Each structure stands twice: as structure tokens, then as C-alpha cells.
């Protein structure tokens, strides 16, 4: 304890030199915490958004569903069994039916992935409630026998559809625009309808936006002649953690793979930068230590003359050098904490929303206790090691020479 007190007194006595070292080391602190905090924030937000918009608590896939193969989509659909239906009613999962189609906005032609989503669903943030349409004719049709039920979708003149902002950009359409879509039902029969874009939603998750158009689940089921069928089921509860009948469960780890990879790659890329910054700060401490030991030979000699072992003296100097890091943590905290708090509250707006990866426009850095504790310990350890290396020289000093300040 005395060593530490002494160390601080010595450091503070050195004035500007100490503060320069401390400032640089505090930069390293703040930058490391900030950068990792930002990546953590991105990671958390990205996962939260992916969950909110796309994967819920996991997905159950039809065994033949393959999101990279648009052609297999036509076969990847199956009936929901009683249990799945029950879970859907309870709001624990929501089915999505996926089919291929072609859109003709203003005479242009573009392939689209049609997705049927339940307007009542609450699991995903996709504003599916806007797809609810009350057509009197449709009600009549459902009211009568089951045979006409299939054709309910014709009872509505123009079907509501929603798309994401990226799709809106690529189709060159906006809210209120209408277009013809053409598709083939499960038998291969051509069908075409006019749809109206009732909303363009904004999501940070490009994978639920690019090339996709959302229709009401029931509409798409009727369009495809696949009543009660779905391609994937999105789970809204952690209770579902395994396959359900034929439906293959995909857990969050699997569904987050891409995001994890991007962030891992960013971390890897930034690791060098962080360590170099730290190295610079450590270089300053190293330099300072060498000078201290050189200039304070008499002091060292005195300590030894007073009966301290050399190891103890090495200890004193090591602690003194290492104490830079504690001061740096304090200085870093003085400007870092308000800065971090401000950033965490306000977020960092990159103005980037279309890089093709899940990334919020504004990222709110997330500083976990673990990150701060780890960084602090790491920097302290590094500073101490760097202080120890030049201090080792002390153990080789001849105390009488040291006392006279004659060590070279």
C-alpha cells in the first residue's frame, strides 16, 4: 500500500511527463472500450433487429426449404398440423408461406419472392396488420361453402401488399402504387392480380426486404392453392427448441451466422489497431521508466542502503510504472464516462442503411461490465509488465555506485 502511495506521489511529482503518458494511455483505454462497445452495440442491435424482423426465437423450416435456391421454393411448403396450428393460435409461432412470382411495375418486369404473413401476427415487426382487408365479397365467400373459399382472393379488387424500402427502391415504386403480379399456383397454373403497395416499411434487416413482397398469408395460400400451408414457421417462444413433426428447427446460433461472421471479421480487423494504440502508450511508459531509473539512482541506492531487498526496489519501480495505468483509467473515466454515456444515449449515426448487411442506421454502443473490467485489467497488466522490464536493471546495480549515481 505504501508502495502504491509512494508511486502516486512520485508520478504526480513528475508533472507534465506523467500526464502526457497518462493521456496517451487513457486514449488507448477509451478507444478500446469505445470500439468494442460499438461492435457489441452493433452485434446486440443487429441480433435484436434480426430477431424482431426475421427469426423470432428461432425458425422451423420445411425440410426442402433452402433460402439460397429460389427454384426449390416451389416445392418447399407443407401443411401445418394440429399442434403447429394450435401454437399459431396461441401466438407462439407464426407461419410464413413463400412463393415465387413476377412483378410488373409500369411495364417493367422483375422477379419477386412473395411472402404470405398473418396480419394478426405479433411475433415479427413486419407491419402485417396493414395487410388486413375487409372486403364484403370476401366475407360472403367464406361464409358459404368451402368450395368457393379458395377463390376469396378474387373477391378483392386490389390486394394490399407491403414491401421494404430496399425493394421499393429496386421496383421504383412507392406507397399507393399499384402493379400487376403474376405467379403460378401449386399446379403450375398462371395467375395474376393487381396489388397495391399500402406501406413501405423501413427495416435494418436487408434479408427480409431485398426482392420480397408481403401479402396476407391467407391471400397467398389461396393464390397458390395451398390452404393451411407454410414454408417456414417463426417461433415466438423459447419453449420451441426442437423439430416439430417434419419441421426442422433452426436455432438462433444458426440463424445469426452471417451477422456473427461480419462482426467477427470487424473485430479481427480492429484488433491490430487497438493493440498498436496500446503499444504506443506502453512505449511512452517504457521510455519514462528507463529515465526514472537512470535519474533516480541515488534514490535506489538509498532504498537498498536502508535495507530493502533489490526485489522490493524493483517492485517499487514496477508499481510506479504500472500506476500510470490506474491514473489513465481514472483520467479515461473523467472524459470517457460522460462521452460513453452520451454516445450510448444518443447513438452514433453513420447514415448508412444500405450496405447489404444488418446494421442499424444509428448504433448505440454497449459497454458491458465485462468489457470494461477486462480492458482495465489488461491495460494494467500490460503497463506493469512494461514497467517491470526496465526496472529489472535495478537488481543488477551495485548499491554503492547507485548511491553515488554512477551507474551507466
Amino acid at each position, binding site marked *: 500500500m505504501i508502495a502504491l502511495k509512494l508511486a502516486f506521489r512520485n508520478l504526480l511529482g513528475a508533472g507534465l*511527463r506523467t500526464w502526457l503518458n497518462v493521456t496517451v494511455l487513457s486514449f488507448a483505454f477509451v478507444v478500446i472500450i469505445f470500439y468494442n462497445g460499438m461492435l457489441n452495440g452493433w452485434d446486440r442491435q443487429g441480433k435484436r433487429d434480426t430477431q424482431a424482423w426475421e427469426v423470432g426465437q428461432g425458425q422451423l423450416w420445411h425440410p426442402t426449404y433452402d433460402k439460397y435456391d429460389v427454384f426449390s421454393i416451389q416445392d418447399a411448403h407443407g401443411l401445418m398440423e394440429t399442434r403447429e396450428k394450435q401454437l399459431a393460435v396461441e401466438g407462439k409461432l407464426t407461419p410464413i408461406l413463400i412463393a415465387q412470382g413476377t412483378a410488373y411495375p409500369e411495364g417493367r418486369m422483375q422477379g419477386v419472392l412473395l411472402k404470405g404473413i398473418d396480419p394478426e401476427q405479433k411475433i415479427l415487426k413486419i407491419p402485417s396488420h396493414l395487410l388486413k382487408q375487409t372486403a364484403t365479397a370476401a366475407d360472403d365467400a367464406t361464409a358459404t361453402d368451402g368450395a368457393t373459399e379458395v377463390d376469396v382472393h378474387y373477391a378483392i379488387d386490389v390486394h394490399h401488399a407491403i414491401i421494404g424500402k430496399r425493394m421499393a427502391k429496386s421496383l421504383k415504386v412507392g406507397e399507393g402504387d399499384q402493379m400487376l403480379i403474376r405467379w403460378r399456383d401449386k399446379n403450375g397454373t398462371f395467375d395474376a392480380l393487381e396489388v397495391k403497395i399500402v406501406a413501405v416499411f423501413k427495416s435494418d434487416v436487408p434479408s427480409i426486404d431485398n426482392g420480397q413482397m408481403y401479402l396476407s398469408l391467407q391471400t397467398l395460400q389461396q393464390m397458390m392453392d395451398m390452404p393451411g400451408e407454410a414454408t417456414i414457421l417463426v417461433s415466438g417462444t423459447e419453449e420451441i427448441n426442437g423439430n416439430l413433426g417434419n419441421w426442422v428447427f433452426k436455432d438462433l446460433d444458426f440463424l445469426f451466422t452471417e451477422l456473427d*461472421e461480419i462482426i467477427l471479421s470487424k473485430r479481427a480487423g480492429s484488433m491490430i489497431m487497438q493493440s498498436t494504440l496500446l503499444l504506443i502508450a506502453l*512505449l511512452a511508459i517504457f521510455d519514462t521508466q528507463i529515465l526514472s531509473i537512470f535519474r533516480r539512482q541515488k534514490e535506489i541506492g538509498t532504498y537498498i542502503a536502508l535495507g530493502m531487498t533489490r526485489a522490493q526496489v524493483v517492485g517499487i519501480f514496477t508499481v510506479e510504472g504500472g500506476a500510470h495505468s490506474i491514473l489513465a483509467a481514472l483520467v479515461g473515466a473523467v472524459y470517457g464516462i460522460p462521452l460513453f454515456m452520451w454516445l450510448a444515449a444518443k447513438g452514433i449515426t453513420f447514415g448508412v442503411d444500405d450496405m447489404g448487411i444488418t446494421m442499424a442506421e444509428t448504433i448505440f454502443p454497449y459497454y458491458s461490465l465485462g468489457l470494461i473490467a477486462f480492458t482495465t485489467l489488461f491495460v494494467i497488466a500490460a503497463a506493469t509488465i512494461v514497467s517491470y522490464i526496465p526496472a529489472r536493471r535495478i537488481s543488477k546495480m551495485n548499491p554503492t555506485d547507485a548511491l553515488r549515481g554512477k551507474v551507466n
Partner: protein
Amino acid sequence: MFKFILKGLLRDKRRSLLPVIVVSIGVFLTVFMSGWLTGVFKDMIDVNANFTTGHVKIMTRSYAENENQIPNDLALTGVDSLMSELNSRYPEMEWVARIHFGGLIDIPDEQGETRAQGQAVGMGIDLFDNSLEAERMNIPSSVVKGRIPSISGEALISDDFAEKFNVAVGDEMTLFGSTMNGAMMFQTYTISGTVRFGAAMLDRGAVIVDIEDAREAMDMQDAAGEILGYSKEGLYDDEQVSVIKESFNSAFTNPDDEFSPVMLRLRDQQGLDEYLALSESISFMMMLIFVLAMSIVLWNTGLLGGLRRYTEYGIRLALGEEKSQIYKTMLYEALLIGLIGSVIGTALGLSAAWYLQTYGLDFGDMMANSTMMMPQVFRAYISPRLFYIGFIPGTFAMVLGTALAGFAIYKRKTAKLFKELEV
């Protein structure tokens, strides 16, 4: 006088060696860091530039509109003359033609009938005359079995596909699809090897052939889906390509002809504008912090250097040297040390950056089984900036630190000096 100081520095290792080492290391770190930062952002951009966008990309106007459908019927024609025009007008860029195509990969049985079929994600690139192209597409390190095609009639196919359908290197495969004119395309290739890119879409059914083979197959003589331009200096320079884009489009693009060529910058494609802006600002901020930190450290070194020689200055004062004279020599020394350190540091930094530019740092193990096209090997990049950036903290900060430390000389009382000399 410089000579005198230099001599002093050389003879007295204590007053020169450590500061030079510190400055060198500091400058080394700064230079290296700068190269690394440029490299990492460049890597991210390069993946896009190399695979899809080029530094600039030329397509026909209507091809550009429907690019994701790979509409080869709308491809550029008269490519040979366009290419030579490009080469003479813009020799600072390297121009390459590429063809993307879809279709079916069809593997025959012994009777020559379909044994296995799959969707092809095809690319025709210049494999034979331009070795850089394969490199750009990261093909050499993506080859799993066999080798890159070396003669016409050979193709690389997706390793996943080959595994799934039990296709071996040396087997034949037929590409079936349609030509530029909509006619049927049949072309048989010998499989020279298999590739795995770590990108899910490509790994389903990649087919890579030489561009001339692709032209032959698709009846695209003198045509290409796109022409990409890469700066010969290697780095995407927005100003440079903006000028080229401007000049090209005003000369070649005809708003009334949907088949006239149009040039897009990397920036204009795939949301890269935002990415570039982002990486530029982050890299600028990081560099700023870095140079600032380094300057502080070297300032400190200057201070330390002054302190180290406290006694010496005392003696010199005692001998009757003028304070201003001592101060001047101190500054000159600092300048020399700073310069020497900066030169050594820059040299070291450049070599380290060069090493990482050439060999890179492989994070592949960390990112095994990647499903995306992402750089796995990070590289530094030697930009012109590296040659001078180290001198800012190395020389300037060093001198500044010494200058500040030197004020102490003026504050010293001669009487006190003698006391210190009693030792």
C-alpha cells in the same frame, strides 16, 4: 554545426540511442498503423471491387437497369474497339471484360445423357491473358481440387456441387443455357478443378471459364456483360474515377440509346457510397487519434531527453555557454534524432506494411465455414501517405517536446547548477 552535433550524437550513445529507438518505434507504429487501416478498409472495398463493381464498371444502360437478372441479351457489343479506346484514353486504369451467365450444369453419364443437373452461377473472366483476374476473384486460394483452367475448354466448378454429385476433376460437364441472342447454348468443358469461395450462392453452382470460352459458348464474340476498370495503382481513388466517369459518359453515353455504354463508379453501386463515406471518416478519426497519441508520446520523449541531460546542460552553463546557444543545439539535436528516427521508423513501418500487404494476416481459422464473401486475410496497404505520415509525430512532436523541455534551462539558476555538480 550539424556535423558537430551529429558527431556528438554518434559518440554519446546515451543521448542518442534511446531517443532514436523510441522515435523509430513510434514512427514505425504510426506508419504501420496507417498502412494497416488503409489496408483493412481497402480489403472490404476490394472484395466488392474485385468481384462485382470494379473501381469503375461499364455496362449498357439497359443491362445496368436489370443487372441482377444477368441480361446478356443486353450486353455490351463492340467490346474490342471500346477496350482499345479505353486503354488509350485512360491508360491509368486496367480494363477487363467479364461475362456473368446462368444456365444449367449438366453432368453426363456414359451414354452422354443427363446424370446430374444443377443451377449454374457462371463467370467468364480473362484467365489466360491477364493473371490478375484470377487473383482478383480470389480463385487461386479458393481452388479445392485440381487447378485453374490453363487451356481453352477447361472449367472450374463448385466443389460443393462436385461433391454432391460425385464429379471428379477431369470429368466432363456441359453448360446448357441460352446465348446472347437467345439461341440454345451447349458447351462441354473438362473440369480442371473445383472451387469453394465461402459464399453460399456461388458455392451452389459456380462455373468459371475463360472469357473467350464464355464468348464462344454464348455467341458473344466482341461482346461482354461488363467492362471493369481498376486503377493501376491499386487503390480506389474517388477523384480519379469521377473524372474518368464524367469524361467517359459524356463521350459515350447516349440517352436515346438504351444499348449505349454507361460508366458507374464503385461508389455508385450497391450502397458502397455509404460504406466508403463511413470508412473514410472512421479511418480519418483513427489516424487523428493515432497521430495525436504518438505526438504526445514523442513530446514526452523530448522532455525525457532534455531531463536526461540535465547535468550536462548544467556543466555547459557553468562553462559559460549561452542559454540560447544550448537551447539551439538541443533543438538541432532533437531535429536530427527526430529525422533519423523517422527515417528508420518509416522504413521499418513500410517493410512491416509491405510484409502484411504481401502476405496478409489470415483470420481464416476464426471465420471457417463462412457463408459470405468476406476478406479472411487482412492486408496492410502501402499508400503514398505512409511515406510522410510518420514524420509528423516523429520529427515535429520530438522537436516540440524538446522545445518545451528546454524552457527549463532558462529557469535554472546557475548557483543551483553548481550544487548539482558537487557529486
